[in-house]
Each structure stands twice: as structure tokens, then as C-alpha cells.
């Protein structure tokens, strides 16, 4: 194969040390599958695993915080506005800026904690709003019937309101999860792990882009898989919703 026109000859990229060892790499192909198979277990698979862990932690913590806030705002209406303002501001801060803003704070620095704080802050608005909307959309007559049959507030919440809000809650989880998977690549700037690491390596390499393509594709595949799993979870948890949609 002919090398790229701009390259004045075979360019030998140097990543992670060692001379290049693959024909497609020396030839500067856009995508070098030999490199991928050779580096799967040392570079890509660990990055993917870290990425999954980063995402799970962020979504789990974000879900816990925003569900608690949504339940509070459901009982105390006045709380909705301040929570929305704060979470909206967090949501609108550009991710690069937020990572850089958090880094100098005491106890954070260049760490996984810093990355998680930023990622969690991006989930709050979506999860809070969806959960609250789901709870508010429970029909009044259903709530009235529950109370009229002698359910207390907690029983009504657990047996009626939360199950009925589940489709909205899962819809929020789907958006939040995909958002976090995407943003977690940027988190590699302050926390040297996840699929962002090979992407950053490839960005700093002028010619060899296989790492970027492979890691990017993995991030997309991960987002699709997570979304699919949540769709399956919703179908299993809310069989009644499909019946109602017919």
C-alpha cells in the first residue's frame, strides 16, 4: 500500500515503547487490525473494563442522589426549582472545563474521585427530572384509590407510585448511562484510565490512528450494549407498559 500523501516516507509511530512490528502499522493504514489483536489484552480490554467500572459507579451514585432528591421534591414541591437550577448549571458546564475546575480542589486532584464527581454531576439533571416527572404522572385517581383502600404514604410509594414511574426512571437511566459512557472518555485527562487513554494516545500521535478508532468503536459498542440491556430490563420489569401501548 502507498503511504499517506503527506507523509514523507514510512513514519514509525512510537507508542508505549518499542519499535513498530506490524506491516499495516508501518504502512500507515488508517486501521491496523493486527495491532488491535496484539494489543487487545494489554491495552484495549483493560481500558474497556475501567470504562465500565467508571460508568457503573457514576450512574449508581447519580441514581442514588437524584432519586433521593426526586422523592424529596415530590413531597415538598418548593424543592423542585432549586434542585433543577443547580443540576442544570452542573449539566451545562463543558466537561473539559469541569474536569479542570475540579482538579485543584483539595482531596480531588488527578484521581478517579475527581472523574467520578464530574461524571455524577452530569447524570443528576436527567435522572432527577425523569424520576420526578414519572412520579407526578401517576394518575390522581390511582393515588386516590390507593389511599382510599388504606395504603399509607410509604406503601403507596413503594407499591404504586414507584412501579408506575419505572418507565420514566429507566428512560432517564438510558440517557444518563449513554452520556456518562461518552463523557468518561474525556475523564482520561485527569484520571489515567478508561477508553479515553488510547484515544488520547492516538490524538498525540500524528499518523497512527488505530487506537482512536478501536477505542472509539468500543465506546460506541458499550453505549449500545448498555442501552440494550436497559431496554431489556424495562421490558422485564414493566410488562404492563407494553400492553397499555397497544
Amino acid at each position, binding site marked *: 500500500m502507498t503511504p499517506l500523501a503527506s507523509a514523507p516516507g514510512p513514519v514509525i509511530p512510537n507508542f508505549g515503547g518499542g519499535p513498530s512490528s506490524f506491516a499495516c502499522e508501518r504502512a500507515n493504514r488508517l486501521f491496523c487490525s493486527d495491532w488491535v489483536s496484539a494489543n487487545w489484552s494489554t491495552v484495549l480490554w483493560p481500558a474497556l473494563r475501567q470504562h465500565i467500572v467508571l460508568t457503573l459507579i457514576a450512574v449508581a451514585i447519580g441514581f442514588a442522589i437524584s432519586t433521593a432528591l426526586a422523592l424529596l421534591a415530590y413531597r415538598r414541591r418548593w424543592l423542585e426549582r432549586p434542585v433543577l437550577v443547580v443540576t442544570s448549571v452542573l449539566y451545562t458546564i463543558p466537561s473539559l472545563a469541569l474536569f479542570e475546575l475540579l482538579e485543584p480542589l483539595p482531596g480531588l486532584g488527578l484521581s478517579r474521585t475527581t472523574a467520578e464527581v464530574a461524571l455524577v454531576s452530569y447524570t443528576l439533571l436527567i435522572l432527577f427530572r425523569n424520576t420526578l416527572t414519572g412520579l407526578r404522572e401517576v*394518575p390522581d385517581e*390511582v393515588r386516590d*384509590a390507593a389511599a382510599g383502600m*388504606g*395504603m399509607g404514604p410509604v406503601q403507596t410509594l413503594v407499591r404504586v407510585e414507584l412501579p*408506575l414511574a419505572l418507565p420514566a426512571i429507566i428512560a432517564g437511566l438510558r440517557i444518563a448511562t449513554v452520556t456518562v459512557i461518552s463523557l468518561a472518555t474525556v475523564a482520561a485527562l485527569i484520571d489515567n484510565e478508561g477508553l479515553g487513554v488510547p484515544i488520547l494516545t492516538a490524538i498525540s500521535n500524528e499518523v497512527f490512528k488505530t487506537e482512536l478508532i478501536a477505542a472509539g468503536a468500543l465506546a460506541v459498542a458499550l453505549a449500545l450494549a448498555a442501552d440494550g440491556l436497559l431496554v431489556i430490563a424495562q421490558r422485564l420489569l414493566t410488562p404492563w407498559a407494553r*400492553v*397499555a401501548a*397497544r
Partner: protein
Amino acid sequence: MNTTNTAQSEGPESFPQAATLELRHVSKEYPGGRGPAIVDLSLSVGAGEVCVLVGPSGSGKTTALRLINRMIPLTAGDILLGGRSVLDREPTELRREIGYVIQQIGLFPHQTVAENVATVPRLLGWEKPRITARVDELLHLTGLDPDEIGPRYPAQLSGGQRQRVGVARALAADPPLMLMDEPFGAIDPITRGHLQDEFLRLQESVRKTVVFVTHDIDEAIKMGDRIAILREGGRLAQYDTPEKLLTEPADDFVAEFVGADRALKRLGLATLRDIELLVPNGAVPAGRVTRGTTVRDALSQLLAQGGRPLEVIGEQGEVAGIVTLELLGGLLG
């Protein structure tokens, strides 16, 4: 019919089958001052009786109903269920003892019909086999096939089926009192008629004390053993049997509310079983009616046939007699 029945129909843990209900000088005023919703309402309902609250909108009939199970708090007065003040009861515990049916039904969309019906028994902590047996019994009682309808979700039911499930759910723990707020209000007229008949038949066997709210005087006359007519501002205009309301309205408001056709409505209270028929005289009848037909419907048929006599068919299909315009005209006198 109106005797106090305290029979235990569901074993030792269950409630008495029916209980007396007494409203004593009940008043309700909502904060915000749009005037009182209920003023000094006193009523007593015998065990096993159907009491219908009827009146125009703004007459506080739904408010009165919701005061009974403490869905809204009383401003003044007292309400006694089975001789005991509802104010001394824990509201959730009280409500589990009172069946509750509302117009929008409020079935839980995420639960199957069987789960919906099992709501109060589950809250009361019944054993599983007992709940299953009770759910089957109630679905049968309300004319639904437990195997076919039980596993369905409310979204898969017709309006009439949903309403039946709502009634089954309210009856699940065999409560001594049923509160029904326009239960058939959102149903088409034909299905509504069926549901009313079904409910009356059901009431024959379960004999609950029932408070039934409607704005429809015809429904009130059909369903009620006693009817409380409320006027705007939540004042009781008259509390009487349907016959008394129709023959002796207490004032102009009641007379107007029961309608100018109250003589006809009275005919709707009786069937051909209740009157003495004429002996067939050999003339060819213009049509046939059954003995279960109301006098009012028979009159309507007679008019449709140009006043020519109708043949009345008895329970065994025999000719029980004939009915003529003159015969019915005599009843009105």
C-alpha cells in the same frame, strides 16, 4: 331487609357483614373560604341499606362521601360506623374496612386484575391461598371469568369490565360499608343499565351498607333504599324512600329535582309482578311483556301499540294475564 346483620361471613378475622352508619351534624368548610361545602348534615343508614346521595354539582355529595372514610377531615360533627366514631380510628385501618369505588375506578395499571382485587386482603396480611380463593370468588360474583380476566392488565379490559373489577376490589375484604362515588358515571347508558342491575343483584346476596353518590335522579331512584337529596351549599333537602320522594316532595327544590315526570318515575319502581293483571278475554294482544317489566316500560309499550292490550308472560312462560291502559291509569289515581 333493613335489619342489622352482624353475621361473620369470612371467618373470625373478618368484619361484620354490614354496619350501621350515622352522620351527626356533620359540617365541612374548606380553608380558603368559598363558603361551607356541607352544613349540619345528619343521616342514618341502616345496616344492609343502600343510601343514595344525590344533588346538583356543588351540593357536597362527594365531599360527604369522602368525609366518611376520612379522605378529607371533618370540620364539625361526628360520623359513627357500627356505633363507633370514625374519628377514633386510624385512617388507614378504617379505610381497609370500607369498600371504595370511584368514577375513574383507579385500578392500578401495573397490576393484573387478580392483583388489583387482592389489594386490601394483602394489606390485611391474609394468607396467600385465602387471597387466591377470595379473588376467584369475587370475580365470579361480579360476572368475570377468573382464568380469563384474572391475569389481564386493566388496559386490556372494556369500560364495563373495569368497573366490575373496581367493585370486586372494593368488596375483597368483605367490608361492612361500601362507598361508591358515581361508580357508573363514565359508562355508556346501555352498559350502565346492566351494571346497575348487576349491582342490585349482587347487593341481594352480599347485603352491604352502601353509600352511593350520583347526580342522576333516575339512578338514585333505581339504586336507593333511601335517598338523600342535597341542595347547593351542602344542605339536606329531604331524606326519604324513593316512593316518598316522588309522592311527597318536601319542597319546590325537591319537586323540581325529582322532575315533572315523577308520576312516571313512580311507575318505574314497580313491576307487573306487583299489580293485579286482568284475565285474558280472548282478544288478540298487541304484544307481549314479561312480569319482570316495570310498570313504566309496560305503559310505554302500551302507548307504542296505540293503547291496545298487552299479554303478560309469567316465569314459566305461561300467560299470566293482560295489561291495558285503563288498568295502569287506575294506578296513577
